[in-house]
C-alpha cells in the first residue's frame, strides 16, 4: 500500500514573488500572532517581497489551508506560524513542493523543504524572573499559563530559575487555566485573582486571549489598593492597562531576523540547513524596556544576559509540565 | 332548518346556526344549526366521525368554524379561545382527560385562572361547594394521578363548572365509567339541570341518551340528520325513540346492517341477551393455561398479582373490571410485553413463560391493544406495512433481510379485501384512516395466519354501532373456528354478549369468575365482584 510520491515539480524555487504567513488567531492577541505578523511584514519588506497572510484560521482545517496557501500564485514560501501546524505543513509541502517554515520541532527539519524556527524562550524567562524577584515586596511570584504549550513551560522554567538566582527562597506559584485555554479570558482572570489572593505581587502571564483576563485581574487588584505588577510575554500589552506602570516588562519575541534569514536562505538554496532560533544573542528574544525597569534591574538583567550568552549561566530547559513541576518543587 | 323554536320559560338559549367546519378531505360539520336550552340535557348522537366532537370544540373555542354563527341569548358572539368560552360560561369535559396528573386536584382546578397569586383558600371553598352539587367529596390536595377514574371525571366536571358555567358539555363521559358511576353521573346531571344549567351530552349508547337526555340531535357525515324535541321524546317509548334515532344515524345503511332490532341489540341499546346457541366448550382441550402469574410492575395500577385461569379451545374468556385495575398489565403479561416475576403461562401444554413478544407471536399468541393509535399502529407508515408489522423480517415478505415489496403488497391487498378495510390504497399512511378502520387493521393483523389465542383489550372503545358490530362478528367467527379469545372490556354488555365465562379483575387480581349461562343475573353477579365482593364459588 501507500501512496505514490509527490508530484515531480516540487522542489523549492528561488524566483518567487510572494511570501505568505498563516496564523491560527488574529493579529489582535498582543502576542504570538501579532508578533509573527509583524515579523513577516518586516522580513518581506527587507527582502522586497509581497506578503500575504491568512490569519485566524484556527487549528482544525490546517492541512487544507496550508496547501491552499502554498498553491496561490507567486507564493514561494509559507510561514506556518503555530506550533500545531508542523505536521500539516509537511503534508502540504509534499503536495505542493513549496518550502514551509514551522515552529518548535527541530527534528522535522528537511533541507530545502521544511525549516524550523526554535525559541530559547527560557532565556527571556530567566531575565524576567530576575526583574520580578527584584521587584516583589512579598517575595511571592505568580505564573499563569493558559495552555499546555512547550514554550510556556520553558519560559516559566527560565522565570523560576531567574527569580531563584536573585533570591533562592523566593516562592513561585504556577496556575493553569486549561489545556487549551489560550483565549479563555474569564478563566485567566480567575486564575490571576487567585494568585493575587495568595499574595503574589508580580504575575507572569502566558496566553493569547487569556492575557486580557490576566491584565484585567491585575488592573482591578491595583484599583482595589493592591500593588501588583504584570509581566507579559511575546508582545506588548501596555495599551491594555489603565496605568502603564502596572506592566513591569514583557519578554518580547522578535521574528524579523529569523524570517529574513529563512527567505534569504531559500534564495541562496540553503534553506533549512539549521534551525532558525530566537534567542537573546540574536535579538530574537528581549525584555521590553519600561519605566519600571530601574537601573538596578537593567544592570542585573544585562549581566545575566552576558552570562547566558557566554555560557557561564545555564538556564534549565523545562519543556514539559513535569519538568516544570520538578523544577518548582526541587 | 334550525331547531324547533321551543322557548323554555325564563331559560337562556345558545343557538348555533349554519356552523360549517372543514378539515382537509372531510367536512366535519356541514351547516349545522341547533339550539341548546338551559335546564335541559341535549344529547348529541352520531357514528364515529360524524362531527360531534368538532361541533363542541367550536363551542368550546378550541376550533373556529369556517362559517356560521353562535348567539347566546340572542346576542351574536365570537368564541375565539377556550378562555372566551369560559367567559360565556361554557364548561367542557373533553373526550380525553385534561387533568395534569402531576398537579393536585386543587392546582388542576385553579389552572388557567387570572390574577397573579394563587387563591387557594377561595378555591378550596369553591370546591366544597361544587362537591355538594356533584354529590362527591374529593380531597383537594391529592394528586390527580392518584384519583380513581370516576373521581377524575368528577374533578373534570367540577373544573368545567369552575367559572360558574351556564352550559356544561360532556363528550362521551360514560365510555370509561362503570355502571354505578354512570348512574351517579346521571344523578349529578339532573341536579345541575335543576340548577338551571344547560347540558350537552355526547354518547354512543342509545339507552343513555333516552334515560338521561331531554332532547336529541343526530349527526351523520357532518350534517344534522335528525332531532327529537323534548316533547317528542316524552311521547315516545324507549324502543320507538331508538328506532327513530337509528334511522337517522344510519339512514339507508341500516338495510346493510340488518334489521333495526339487531343493530340496536348489538350496540347494547337493549338488554343484552346472549345467544341461546352457545356451545359448551368445557369438554374441549385447554389451550391457554395461566398459573399464579405476577408481573413486574411499579405501581398498583398496572401490575397483576397471582392470576390463574385456563381457557379452552374456541372459548371467549371475558375480563370485566373497572378500568385501570390491571387490565393492561394482564394483556401485556399474556402477550409477552411485560416481564413476569412468578408463575407460568403455557400454550397447549408448552411453557411459554419465558418467551418474548415475537416468539409468542409466532406460536400464535396475539394481542390487539387498546391504544390503537400509538401502540397498535405506526401512524406515518403505510397500511401495508402496518398490516405486516408483526411479521417484519419473515418470509416470504423479507428474504435475506431484504423486503419483497410485491409479496408485502399482495398480502396487504388480501387482508384489506378480507377485512373490508376502507383505505385509498395499501400505501396510504395508516394514521389518516378513521378509528374504525384502524381497528380493522389491528384485527386483520392479529387474527390471521395461525392465531391460536388472541387477547383483545377494549376492542370497541370509541367505535360506533356499525364498527362495534363488525368487531364482534370477527371475534365470534374467530372463536367459532376454534380460536381462543381473552376479551378485556369495560363494557359489561359486550362481555355478556360475547363471553363464555367472565373473570372479574380488581386491583390486579381476578377476584371471581362467572359462567355466562345466559341467566338474567349474570350482570348482577359480575357487578357483585366488581364492587368488591370476594369469590366463594369458583368455576
Amino acid at each position, binding site marked *: 500500500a501507500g501512496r505514490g510520491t509527490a508530484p515531480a515539480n516540487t522542489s523549492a524555487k528561488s524566483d518567487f514573488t510572494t511570501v505568505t504567513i498563516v496564523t491560527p488567531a488574529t493579529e489582535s492577541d498582543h502576542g504570538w500572532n501579532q508578533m509573527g505578523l509583524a515579523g513577516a511584514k518586516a522580513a518581506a519588506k527587507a527582502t522586497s517581497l509581497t506578503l500575504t497572510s491568512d490569519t485566524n484560521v484556527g487549528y482544525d482545517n490546517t492541512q487544507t489551508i496550508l496547501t491552499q496557501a502554498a498553491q496561490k500564485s507567486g507564493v514561494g514560501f509559507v510561514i506556518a506560524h503555530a506550533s500545531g501546524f508542523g505536521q500539516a505543513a509537511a503534508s502540504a509541502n509534499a503536495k505542493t513542493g513549496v518550502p514551509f517554515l514551522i515552529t518548535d520541532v527541530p527534528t522535522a527539519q528537511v533541507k530545502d523543504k521544511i525549516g524550523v524556527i526554535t525559541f530559547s524562550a527560557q532565556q527571556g524567562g530567566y531575565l524576567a524572573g530576575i526583574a520580578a524577584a527584584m521587584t516583589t515586596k512579598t517575595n511571592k511570584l505568580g505564573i499563569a499559563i493558559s495552555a499546555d504549550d512547550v514554550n510556556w513551560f520553558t519560559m516559566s522554567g527560565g522565570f523560576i530559575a531567574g527569580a531563584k538566582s536573585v533570591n533562592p527562597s523566593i516562592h513561585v506559584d504556577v496556575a493553569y487555566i486549561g489545556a487549551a*485555554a489560550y483565549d479563555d479570558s*474569564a478563566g485567566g482572570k480567575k486564575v490571576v485573582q487567585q494568585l493575587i489572593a495568595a499574595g503574589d505581587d508580580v504575575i507572569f502571564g502566558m496566553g493569547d*486571549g487569556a492575557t486580557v483576563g490576566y491584565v*484585567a485581574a491585575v488592573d*482591578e487588584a491595583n484599583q482595589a489598593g493592591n500593588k501588583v505588577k504584570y509581566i507579559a510575554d511575546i508582545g506588548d500589552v501596555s495599551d491594555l492597562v489603565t496605568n502603564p506602570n502596572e506592566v513591569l516588562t514583557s519578554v518580547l519575541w522578535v521574528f524579523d531576523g529569523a524570517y529574513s534569514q529563512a527567505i534569504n536562505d531559500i534564495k541562496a538554496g540553503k534553506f533549512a540547513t539549521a534551525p532558525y532560533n530566537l534567542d537573546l544573542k540574536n535579538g530574537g528574544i528581549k525584555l521590553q524596556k519600561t519605566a519600571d525597569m530601574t537601573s538596578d534591574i537593567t544592570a542585573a538583567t544585562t549581566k545575566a544576559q552576558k552570562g547566558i550568552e557566554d555560557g557561564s549561566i545555564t538556564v534549565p530547559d523545562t519543556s514539559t*509540565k513535569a519538568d516544570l513541576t520538578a523544577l518548582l518543587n526541587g | 332548518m334550525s331547531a324547533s323554536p321551543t322557548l323554555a320559560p325564563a331559560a337562556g338559549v345558545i343557538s348555533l346556526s349554519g356552523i360549517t367546519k372543514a378539515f382537509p378531505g372531510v367536512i366535519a360539520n356541514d351547516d349545522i344549526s341547533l339550539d341548546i336550552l338551559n335546564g335541559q340535557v341535549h344529547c348529541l348522537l352520531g357514528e364515529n366521525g360524524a362531527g360531534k366532537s368538532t361541533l363542541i370544540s367550536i363551542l368550546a373555542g378550541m376550533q373556529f368554524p369556517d362559517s356560521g354563527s353562535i348567539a347566546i341569548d340572542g346576542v351574536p358572539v365570537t368564541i375565539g379561545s*377556550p378562555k372566551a368560552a369560559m367567559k360565556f360560561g361554557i364548561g367542557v369535559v373533553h373526550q380525553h382527560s385534561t387533568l395534569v396528573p*402531576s*398537579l393536585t386536584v386543587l392546582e388542576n382546578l385553579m389552572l*388557567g385562572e387570572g390574577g397573579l397569586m394563587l387563591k387557594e383558600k377561595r378555591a378550596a371553598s369553591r370546591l366544597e361547594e361544587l362537591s355538594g352539587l356533584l354529590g362527591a367529596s374529593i380531597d383537594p390536595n391529592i394528586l390527580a394521578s392518584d384519583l380513581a377514574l370516576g373521581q377524575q371525571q368528577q374533578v373534570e366536571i367540577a373544573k368545567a363548572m369552575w367559572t360558574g358555567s351556564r352550559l356544561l358539555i360532556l363528550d362521551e363521559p360514560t365510555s370509561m365509567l362503570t355502571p354505578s358511576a354512570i348512574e351517579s353521573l346521571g344523578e349529578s346531571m339532573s341536579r345541575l339541570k335543576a340548577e338551571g344549567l344547560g347540558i350537552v351530552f355526547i354518547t354512543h349508547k342509545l339507552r343513555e341518551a333516552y334515560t338521561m337526555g331531554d332532547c336529541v340531535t343526530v349527526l351523520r357525515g357532518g350534517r344534522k340528520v335528525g332531532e327529537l324535541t323534548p316533547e317528542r321524546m316524552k311521547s315516545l317509548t324507549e324502543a320507538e325513540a331508538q328506532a327513530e334515532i337509528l334511522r337517522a344515524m344510519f339512514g339507508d345503511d341500516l338495510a346493510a346492517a340488518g334489521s333495526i332490532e339487531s343493530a340496536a341489540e348489538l350496540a347494547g341499546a337493549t338488554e343484552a341477551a346472549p345467544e341461546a346457541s352457545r356451545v359448551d366448550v368445557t369438554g374441549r382441550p385447554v389451550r391457554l393455561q395461566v398459573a399464579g402469574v405476577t408481573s413486574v410492575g411499579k405501581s398498583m395500577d398496572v401490575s397483576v398479582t397471582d392470576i390463574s385461569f385456563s381457557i379452552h379451545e374456541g372459548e371467549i374468556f371475558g375480563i370485566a373490571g373497572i378500568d385501570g385495575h390491571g387490565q393492561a398489565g394482564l394483556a401485556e403479561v399474556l402477550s409477552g410485553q411485560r416481564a413476569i416475576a412468578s408463575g407460568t403461562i403455557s400454550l397447549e401444554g408448552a411453557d411459554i413463560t419465558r418467551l418474548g413478544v415475537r416468539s409468542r407471536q409466532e406460536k400464535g399468541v396475539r394481542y390487539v391493544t387498546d391504544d390503537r393509535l400509538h401502540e397498535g399502529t405506526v401512524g406515518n407508515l403505510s397500511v401495508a406495512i402496518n398490516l405486516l408489522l408483526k411479521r417484519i423480517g419473515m418470509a416470504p415478505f423479507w428474504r435475506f433481510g431484504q423486503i419483497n415489496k410485491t409479496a408485502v403488497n399482495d398480502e396487504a391487498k388480501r387482508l384489506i379485501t378480507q377485512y373490508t378495510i376502507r383505505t385509498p390504497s395499501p400505501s396510504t399512511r395508516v394514521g389518516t384512516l378513521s378509528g374504525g378502520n384502524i381497528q380493522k387493521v389491528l384485527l386483520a393483523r392479529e387474527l390471521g395466519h395461525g392465531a391460536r389465542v388472541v387477547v383483545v383489550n377494549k376492542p370497541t372503545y370509541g367505535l360506533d354501532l356499525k364498527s362495534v358490530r363488525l368487531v364482534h362478528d370477527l371475534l365470534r367467527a374467530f372463536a367459532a373456528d376454534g380460536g381462543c379469545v381473552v376479551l378485556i372490556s369495560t363494557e359489561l354488555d359486550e362481555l355478556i354478549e360475547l363471553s363464555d365465562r367472565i373473570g372479574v379483575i380488581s386491583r390486579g387480581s381476578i377476584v371471581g369468575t362467572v359462567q355466562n349461562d345466559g341467566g338474567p343475573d349474570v350482570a348482577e353477579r359480575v357487578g357483585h365482584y366488581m364492587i368488591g365482593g370476594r369469590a366463594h364459588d369458583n368455576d
Partner: protein
Amino acid sequence: MLASIGETVGEQSGVLNLGIEGMMLMGAYFGYVVALTTHSTWLGMLGGLLAGAITSLVLLVLNVWLGLNQIVLGIAITAAGGGITTVLYDQIYSKTSPRIPTDNWKVPGLSDIPVVGHSLFSQPAMFWVSLLLAVIIAWFLVRTNWGLSIRAAGQKPSSLDAAGGSVMRTRSQAVLLGGMLSGLGGAYLSVLATNAFTPFMTNGLGYIAIVVTMLSRGKILRVVIVSLLYGLTIAVGTVLQLTSLDVPTDLITMLPYIVVMIVLLIFGRDVNNSPVLGAPYTRGAR
C-alpha cells in the same frame, strides 16, 4: 446559575433550549458593547439581558409559535451566537480589545455597611442578585397562577389550553425569561467577571447550565445547590493546580463533567424531565 434558572423555567414549560450557549454569548457580547459605550455596568447588564431576550425570540417564534424542531433550532442558535459575536468582535474590537473601565460594582447602599458590607456585597454582588432572583422565581413557580401555568404547559399543554390558559403565551414567557437570564449570565461573564469580551468566552458554560438544570429536576433551590457544587469542583480544580501537583490540566477541566457523570450514574438515573419536553404544542393536533 442564572442560565440554569432560565433553562429550568423553560424546561418546566416544556421547551428544551439547547441554544443557551449562543444566548449567553450574545448576552456577553452586547453587554460588553453597551457597557463599553455607556460606561455603565448596570446598562451593560441590561444590554446583555436584552440581547439574550432578543436571541430567544428566534426560539420563541420558530419553536413556540410555529412548532419547529427545538433541537435543530438550539444548535442553530448556538452556532449563530458564536458566529455573530465573533464576527462582530473581530470586525470592531479585536484590534484594540478595549476593556470596560472597572467601577467596582456595588449594590448601592448595602456595600456601605461596615465590615460585612464590603466583603459581602462589593465583589460577588451579582451572586447575591442571582440568589435573590432564584428565590423570587422559585416563589413564582410555586405560588402564582403564572407558575402553575408554566408547570402545566410542561406537563400537559392540552390541559392548560382547555383550562383557558394560553400554552403559547406561557411558553413564550418562559423562553423569553430563559433568554433574559442566559443573556444576563453571559453579560456577567463579560461585564463583571472579565471586563472584556473574548470570542467563545462561555466555553461550554451553556451546556453546563443544561446539565445543571437536568440534575436539579425542575427545582430552583436545587439549581442553586448544584451550581454551587459545580463552582466548588472548579475551585477544587484550581486548588489542585496551585498545590503544584503534576495533575494533567485536562483532568481538571474534565473534573466537573466527570462528577456530573458519576452523579448521574449513581443518583440521577431516573431523571424525569417534563414529559413533553422538546415537543411543540399545536392545538387540536391528532
